[in-house]
């Protein structure tokens, strides 16, 4: 199982257009620094069964990923956000692990796009 579409090109292009090329690079770097931290927060929140922190971390991953066009990845995060909201994290561990794994592919795809491949 893996995501069918990593990055929605029109969304990515629209953001790049509105941010400008140089700033888009900076924004991507920030995303690459921040997302692993958010994934860690998500894992910690899961371990602690902290629904509020879990929901918030998933929400943030969803929000920033959608901005770059990582829409399917964003949907996964949204699913976790809803589980957090419903205060039921049964089965969340596998999904969190999958999300963390998929992030590597999202990152690669974003880097490729940014460098025009």
């Amino acid at each position: 199982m893996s995501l069918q579409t990593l990055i929605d090109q029109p969304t990515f292009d629209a953001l790049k257009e509105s941010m400008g090329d140089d700033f888009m690079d900076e924004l991507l770097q920030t995303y690459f620094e921040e997302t692993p931290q958010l994934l860690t927060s998500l894992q910690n929140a899961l371990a602690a069964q902290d629904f509020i922190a879990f929901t918030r971390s998933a929400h943030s991953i969803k929000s920033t990923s959608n901005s770059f066009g990582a829409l399917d990845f964003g949907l996964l995060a949204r699913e976790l956000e809803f589980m957090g909201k419903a205060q039921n994290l049964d089965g969340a561990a596998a999904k969190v692990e999958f999300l963390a794994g998929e992030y590597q592919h999202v990152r690669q795809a974003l880097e490729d796009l940014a460098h025009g491949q």
Partner: protein
Amino acid sequence: MPERSRRDLKGIQPQLNEKRVLIVDDNATNRRILNLQLHNWGMLTRDTGSPAEALLWLKRGDPFDLAILDMHMPEMDGAMLAAEIQKIRDSASLPLVLSTSIGRLEIGDTGKLFAAYLNKPIKPSQLFDTLAGIFVALPTEEKKPGIQKAPADLEIAKEHPLRILLAEDILVNQKLALRLLEQMGYRADVASNGIEAVQSVERQTYDVVLMDVQMPEMDGLEASRRICARWPRGIRPTIIAMTANAMAGDREMCLEAGMDDYLSKPIRRDELMKALLNVSPLQKGGK
């Protein structure tokens, strides 16, 4: 578009997810069917049987990404309503779709009023292709060479100066918002949670707070409640919510907490600009 199973039209569709649709049709059953289908794809809908009510929503600035209008309505038909809507919102920011049970030729010349037409009974596949086609086409249109980004953007801050506080904990979102503001000539102070936001408003006068809803320590809703409890309207800053939520009731939740306006993420420059232009700066001595 990617080759994701194109004919799998069950459940959330990324192309349409979280897009806000206005449905105007006097037939309640038609509205209900459209609502169900669009919800199923993740879209956020609001519907009315009254063209007058739809115009009211648009005039007061309620945000929509698309409107589906029925042709045959008693007080005002779909084409007349479209002409009225275009006096308020241009077709790039709010594409209009006409649904009709008669052929397109019989409607007569509607010029450039509609981005697309739907023939009733509306099949899900036709509906999906039409809507997805519109949203895919939108960003490309903006990029046509020759159409420059509004060059006067930088002047906005000069003509309409504002003291802005951005309350947002996520760095990517902070940078993105600051960049959009910078492109309009604005600068902003940054608070990274609700407590800091309230403290900043205590210390300094701001005309507007761009308030993220999900923040650690204290969320944007609670921060807004506190600001509104301490300072009356006219003294306190205008509070504009920013959220990437998917729930239909989010806007209402923000307004109930005392916020004045609502932007959904990812923040778009035209929507941000519009919201900021709606803000009345406070008197010099204000909060």
